[in-house]
């Protein structure tokens, strides 16, 4: 059943308004976890505050190539995922710590809580790290993650995605998000993807296929740029869309 017809999942109900929901009815886990009182505004400008700084000692060998972390190669479609990390003015953010984690090609995480009956891959841990370069670029080589069921509602499936965690330069440039793949047929059914209410903002979560990032005879390339906002606007990161 598409999301809009479901009594449980309500991504495009206009009564929810255009803003990102803190308590989003379609995503059941939000109900008892999202703060239910208004957030308090601090007197200081948090954007002026520097955030934590990470160096190369935060990285291990093969942290950016998820296909080289074991004896053999992981099963699945090897891909390149790359992009630039910039601030809202388009300035590159060098030295930003980027951490990723994902399911394997069969849609299974190497995590004890994941009970999806798809095989684990002994050659895939599904975790990576890197620091952005002088131009704010990052680059990972994983395999394309599989879709998987997640029990939020009847026949609920997550579209294929890679989790990203980023530290920018300032305290408020902290972001945890998910990257999706272009053209995924599961988009209309996924309450997490649709918890971003503005369709233009939602599209920013979708990577694009990039022939230039594609390694010939080796791996398809996907380009995904990340904009770290100034914060200070609660949970509505797109109020200033022109």
């Amino acid at each position, binding site marked *: 059943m598409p999301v809009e017809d479901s009594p449980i999942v309500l991504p495009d109900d206009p009564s929810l308004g255009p803003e*990102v929901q*803190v308590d989003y009815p379609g*995503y*059941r*886990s*939000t*109900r*008892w*976890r*999202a*703060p*239910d*009182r208004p*957030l*308090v*505004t*601090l*007197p200081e400008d*948090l954007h002026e505050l*520097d955030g*934590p*700084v990470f160096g190369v000692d935060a990285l291990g060998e093969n942290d950016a190539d998820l296909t080289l972390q074991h004896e053999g190669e992981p099963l699945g479609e090897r891909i390149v995922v790359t992009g630039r990390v910039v*601030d*809202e*003015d*388009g300035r590159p953010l060098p030295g930003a710590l980027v*951490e990723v*984690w994902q399911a394997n090609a069969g849609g299974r*995480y190497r*995590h004890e*809580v994941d009970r999806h009956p798809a095989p684990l891959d002994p050659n895939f*841990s*599904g*975790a*990576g790290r890197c620091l952005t370069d002088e131009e704010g670029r990052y680059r990972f080589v994983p395999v394309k993650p599989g879709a998987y069921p997640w029990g939020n509602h009847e026949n609920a499936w997550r579209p294929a995605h890679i*989790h990203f*965690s980023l530290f920018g330069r300032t*305290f408020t440039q*902290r*972001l*945890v*998000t*998910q990257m999706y793949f272009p053209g995924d047929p599961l988009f209309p059914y996924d309450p997490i*993807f649709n*918890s*971003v209410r503005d369709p*233009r*903002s939602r599209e*920013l*979560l979708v990577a694009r296929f990039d022939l230039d990032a594609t390694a010939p005879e080796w791996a398809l390339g996907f380009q995904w740029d*990340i*904009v770290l*906002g100034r*914060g200070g606007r*609660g*949970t509505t*990161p*797109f109020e*200033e*869309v022109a």
Partner: protein
Amino acid sequence: MTLVPTPSQTVGPFYSIGLCRRRDDELATNGIALTGQLHDGQGHPIVDGMIEVFDASSGRWGRSGTDGSGRFHFVVSKPVGRAGAPHLDVFVFARGLLRHQLTRVYFPDETDANAVDPVLSALGPDDRATLVARPDGDGLRFDIHMQGDHATVFFVH
């Protein structure tokens, strides 16, 4: 031209494979143990949450996943040099949070400084109490409640 920020998405239940591969919970050597429990609106422990603590005065940062009892653990030192009473910034991440939440932990032995802190003094006594750790043996205890009568104060960020 201002670019539209990339939206936040939940950290989900499996973050530990990517974010907790190494121990990052010691901000100081020979510091103070800071422990606590993360609760949801029904009073249940959140066993798949993650806490990050940041001392903006020194740049020290730490991270702790919650365990099977919803508990987290850090070793911290009291920040010095910033305006207001000494405090650490605390980010809360969890499955079910579309974006991480910001709170603060203040120190219970800083009675005078806490009394004139601009953030604490702008809150009512019950809300203020949610931001001040309590002594716990040699260490400090700081429980976080996402909702309910004892809900922790969270800040716009």
